[in-house]
């Protein structure tokens, strides 16, 4: 058996697509609250499970550990700290990112689920776990109710 063929043109093949590649992805009930608060009020909100002492950011309508219905929405503020981070040199299509992009998990407090987002206005050597950061939002007129309404997080100055 032939084990290595470098060029697809050397074998009989067809280029094809799977046609059903467009979908409506809905934000859901808690997601609607999260994105509307972000767009209209510039707030990052979460829901709290009192039984498990756990706050979900972004919010959810149920606690996945005890299945309680969560109705208490909390304003989390815009400040958090870095839980983990990475400095990415390639995008998903294997194209070089120059400058590299920095991604981080950001926690808004103890017993709170972290949020994935970008870090900017920071040198990669200066990032550490525990670094205090704040959200930088798009101007209100440009916000669309998407996670990218948050442009990035940056270190808290001073």
């Amino acid at each position: 058996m032939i084990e290595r063929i470098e060029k697809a043109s050397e074998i009989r093949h067809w280029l094809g697509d799977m046609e059903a590649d467009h979908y409506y992805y809905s934000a859901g009930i808690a997601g609607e609250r999260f994105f509307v608060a972000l767009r209209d009020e510039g707030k990052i909100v979460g829901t709290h499970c009192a039984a498990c002492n756990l706050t979900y950011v972004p919010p959810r309508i149920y606690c996945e550990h005890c299945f309680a219905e969560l109705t208490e929405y909390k304003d989390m503020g815009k400040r958090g700290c870095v839980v983990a981070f990475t400095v990415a040199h390639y995008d998903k299509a294997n194209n070089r990112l120059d400058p590299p992009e920095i991604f981080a998990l950001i926690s808004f407090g103890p017993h709170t689920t972290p949020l994935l987002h970008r870090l900017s206005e920071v040198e990669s050597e200066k990032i550490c776990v525990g670094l205090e950061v704040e959200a930088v939002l798009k101007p209100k007129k440009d916000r669309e109710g998407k996670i990218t309404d948050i442009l990035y997080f940056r270190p808290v100055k001073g």
Partner: protein
Amino acid sequence: MDLKKIRKDVAVIGAGMTIFARRLQETGKEMSWEAAKMALDEAGLTLKDIDAVIMGSAPDAFDGVHKKGEYLLDGAGGTNKPYMRVFIGGGTAVFAPIVGWWHVASGMFKRVLVVCEEKMSSVQPHAQSAFGHIWDPILDRPLKPNLVWIFSMEMQRYMHKYNVRYEDIALVAVKNKRNAVGHPCAQLADPNITLEDVLNSEPMALPVRRLDISPPSDGAAAIVLVSEDVAYEHTDTPVWIDGVGWCIDTTMWTNRDLAFPKFVARAAKMAYEMAGIKNPRKEIDLAEPYDPFDYKELQHLEGLLLADPGEAAIMTREGKTQRDGEFPVCPSGGLLGVGNPIAAALGIKIGELYWQLAGKAGPRQVKKDVRTGVAQAWGDLMQVASVVVMRRR
């Protein structure tokens, strides 16, 4: 959960695997057939002896064919038999044999064929294009994440919490790529690789570098499982599956303990209880934990309760996990050395334990006498663990 009421003991009596490489020409069916035929030949069986077939394969998007289970059916030998496809991402490599196990353990079937296949080269421009659609479409995808970044954050969290040095993690890549030398299926074996090679390899998403990762691959693997009623009719060296376990953590990956894989520990405890193992460190002789990244081997050894958190790095530095060390880990060469066609890692994990415990691993055979081994895989959105304990009696 009652882990005592198993009706039949189940043995592996044959295994097969293809070369792992970029294999543009062969179809997934053809590779499945090649591996399945090898496993049947080693077991001394033909397809008509097989009562049921389990097929393991990862996302449909890799092949661009929905319902990939039936697409691969004929290559796996499932036509006109009870047949099912299972898929839990990378965890499939050890979960498909668990599904095969319960087919036999239940008493329903005497001889079951488990086939795992992956062809990652079909998807264009890169397998990462398919992985781009495993994320939450609302929260994660607009940020354009790729898998490597997420693993990188997990690796960094592991290093931070347990004070693990990158140099010790990179030693896993060196060990496994060297172990793979002599493996007839290996894609990534390198007899001359050094720690410096890994440390100086290209940054992908720091702290992850090029040589910390196993790249995409194509290949297939298969095993034959039989009931205790017929095992010794076919071989003198059956290797028994004495414990199985599986567990899944939350899909919201940001919310997990990224430093210690609790779901692996839960799966391991289930498998150990079934196998009657009270002290895994003393009772297990070798391990094949899932190693798509070098740090995952360490984290998984700790999840399997074979090391304390952070200790697996020290064991690696001290050479204990070498093939000839006191506790061999990934003597196959693992995914880092042999290759990573997702579900087909069956051949590196369960296949290797079978060959090692049956004394059939050839140049890869570990020096010490081994009777009990554990294999583990990890998958879905980095959240599921499948664990199998195997023994020679």
